[in-house]
């Protein structure tokens, strides 16, 4: 058995940023466990640019963004193991992993940082009726084939779901010589970033069919066509609008699910809305000394925010190791009207922290609404936003001075208001 101060599960953007920040916070006994054969996570297959605008004020590709962190990990001599799969974490913070070199590894960690990322929702979760032929891929799987392996999954493509990976793949497949016939989105708005709709669909004349879904998959061996239909306000397909669209490939970009199987096994409390662990503003989960950050915590749309969030997890984990965390008291953060969830769910009562970030998503499209923060029913913040959509993560700051002004404070609520 090995003993470590900090074990980080996952060597993607979250795990790397957490490691670097933990190191700078004074802990050097860090081990990153990565299941793939290189650090960087899913960024390695994201060869398009647009990463790092917030963080570095530059437009980097995925691999370039990852490289900035991987280089620091190397410079700081932070230890990592590749092709190492964690198979179990226990409540008393043992991490059990496997790899080809050492076999089963048992590490007793003082703290664990969960940074396993997320996976794509498969077809089965949607129950699209029809056959089960080949030629149906999640957008990320197709991205791996095209960008890493150099193979084209098909030549005539329909994409279901307007998540960012689907939009990115619409452009990529077009550039590689495939015909992308349309992107269908069941909701009346896209789940992806506005900039991706412009740069990946509009610029290539790929139609985005909002309020449309696929009602049937045709083709016994390889997919041959899909039936596309408009949906009504209750998302029910309208029979008369059905259209038969031939294709040899269907890509699914219908949502991401945080990969929390290990988290659940360890007995950590999960937020049913995010499918990620419930955390406080230190990003600590329901097990003391176990932290979470990045897409395993909640699905982000920008990696820049993943890096920021992970830096906090790394820093707090280091402080946990050094026993320098000040307070365990906390205030509940409530997702009010129009807000689907918030991360974190608690703000730690620590007067040394001048501000805490709350990230949230709204539950529908809201135009010219106000984002309001209430401290025990008293408005501390009230700001109008031109548009709020579920596809874009929002963030607000909770200032310490507000908290200090309310000695009896119990809850903080984030909500949307019309005026």
């Amino acid at each position: 058995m090995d003993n470590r101060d900090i074990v980080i599960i996952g060597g993607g953007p979250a795990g790397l940023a957490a490691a670097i920040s933990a190191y700078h916070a004074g802990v050097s006994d860090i081990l990153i466990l990565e299941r793939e054969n290189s650090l960087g996570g899913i960024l390695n297959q994201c060869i398009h640019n647009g990463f790092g605008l917030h963080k570095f004020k530059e437009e980097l590709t995925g691999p370039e963004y990852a490289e900035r962190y991987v280089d620091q990990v190397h410079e700081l001599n932070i230890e990592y193991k590749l092709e190492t799969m964690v198979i179990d974490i226990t409540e008393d913070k043992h991490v059990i992993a496997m790899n080809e070199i050492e076999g089963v590894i048992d590490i007793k960690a003082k703290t664990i940082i969960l940074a396993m990322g997320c996976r794509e929702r498969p077809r089965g979760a949607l129950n699209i009726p029809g056959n089960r032929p080949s030629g149906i891929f999640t957008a990320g799987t197709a991205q791996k084939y095209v960008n890493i392996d150099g193979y084209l999954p098909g030549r005539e493509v329909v994409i279901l779901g307007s998540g960012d990976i689907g939009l990115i793949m619409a452009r990529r497949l077009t550039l590689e010589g495939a015909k992308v016939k349309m992107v269908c989105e069941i909701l009346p708005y896209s789940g992806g970033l506005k900039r991706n709709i412009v740069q990946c669909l509009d610029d290539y004349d790929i139609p985005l069919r909002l309020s449309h879904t696929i009602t049937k998959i045709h083709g016994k061996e390889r997919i041959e066509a899909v039936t596309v239909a408009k949906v009504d306000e209750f998302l029910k397909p309208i029979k008369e609008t059905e259209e038969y669209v031939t294709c040899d490939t269907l890509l699914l970009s219908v949502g991401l699910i945080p990969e929390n199987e290990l988290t659940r096994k360890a007995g950590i409390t999960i937020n049913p809305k995010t499918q990620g662990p419930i955390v406080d503003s230190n990003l600590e989960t329901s097990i003391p000394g176990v932290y979470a950050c990045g897409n395993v915590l909640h699905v982000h749309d920008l990696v820049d925010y993943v890096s920021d969030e992970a830096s906090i997890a790394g820093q707090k984990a280091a402080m946990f190791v050094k026993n320098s965390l000040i307070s365990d008291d906390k205030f509940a953060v409530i997702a009010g009207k129009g807000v689907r969830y918030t991360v974190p769910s608690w703000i730690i009562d620590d007067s040394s922290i001048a501000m805490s970030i709350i990230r949230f998503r709204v539950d529908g499209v809201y135009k010219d609404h106000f984002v309001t923060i209430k401290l025990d029913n008293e408005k501390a913040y009230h700001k109008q936003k031109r548009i709020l959509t579920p596809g874009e993560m929002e963030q607000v700051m909770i200032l310490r001075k507000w908290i200090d002004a309310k000695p009896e404070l119990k809850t903080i609520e984030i909500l949307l208001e019309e005026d």
Partner: protein
Amino acid sequence: MMYDVIVIGAGVIGANIARELAKYELNIMVLEKNLDVCEGTSKANSGIVHSGYDAKPGSLKAKYNVIGNVLMEDLCKELVVPFKRNGSLVLAFSESESATLKKLLDQGHKNKVKGLAILEKEAIIAKEPNINKNVYQALYAPSGGIVDPFELTLASAEVAFLNDVSFQFGTRVTHIYREDDAFMVVTNRGEYKSRTIVNAAGVFADDINNLISDTKYRILPRKGEYCLFDKQIGDLVTSTIFQLPTKEGKGVLVTPTAEGNLLIGPNSEFVDDKNDTSTSEEGIREVIRRAKQSVDNIPMPFVITAFAGLRATEKNEDFVIGEADDVPGFFNALGIESPGLTAAPAIAIEIAHMVAQKLEAKQSDNYIIKRNKTVHFESLSIKEKQELFLKDKNYGKIICRCELVTLAEILDSIKRPLGAKTVDGVKRRTRAGSGRCQGGFCSPKIVEILAKELGKDLREILKSSEKSTYLIGLDKDLL
């Protein structure tokens, strides 16, 4: 070359018949139109080992069900196939429904099913806390069980193969005619000559029979749709939960599978096309609605896939087992719908015995009983995992993260006797890709491993059938 027996079909029935026939000194060939064993009804069913109260007394279904139920446990031990006698419950929600339970109980006694009992509400809920609390009574059948139908078929075929039974895949029978004392079996890949034929062609068994016999049969394929759930909720129920049977069959069940998932289904719908295993929105909705009558809190977000299978319902609604009256040497295992999986071991022994008698074959004295050792890495203890790793480093490399399938297991599934040649073949042998991400992460890796092991390009790797490729071209190849 003259075979003693040609078995048509490599589903659970054909594979088990081939395995039983291999116990005799016979020269045997199995012809299968698909590229692998277990590609028809055997891959899309409930995986239930029925206790036998459901079949009409005196029917062949009743006879082979009850014998098969007894044989299944030892056979699964012998072949190392996941099997569990988890017991089953048929639920009644009112006094009037309970009258039907009594009828089933009587029927079960006539069929000589052991251990049947009527349970009261408290006992049912104590046994299955997640069951709909409006339950009134239930028929409990302790001999009910669950089995992995893929493994049962694969293992049977593998043992047959180890005992020198030949298998030809991608071989579709188009004609059968007699030539002197032999049958000529015409296929898309040439003619095969045999002294006898066993017809185990599933939903196509009527077509095969009607090629040669004047006693015509007609199979009306009856579709059943299912939803499969994540293993995380595999223990929502421990027994197999049935509803009262209707004229359409045993109704929608809720059951754990032998692999640890939760399964709900099937509905019942006659279809015209014997290849139609598509799911429908209405069908899946019906399955969910009816399953929730038994277990009201099934968490739907945990569905990982939906699928459909076809029951080979013969118009007389019983199995047809034995030699055709007008064609000596031609044996049918036809109309094998539920409880066909349960009955498979019993049907196999019966048919093999009939064929052996016909051919006056002697028992072989060097029959190999067991297949090569299989490893199910996920279920092993940490210590056992490490021991395996020390023997083979490929056990340290996990390919399928959801089901924890290692490279060693995947290589074995390809290299072992009658090994996998397709991605679905690997999936059925190892479970890689059958978990919650449905192959999202591991299928590219498996395509790559298959290409390497089979010496092919990635574009040639198939999901299951000949045209089911994954990759169509190279980046920019047409630009």
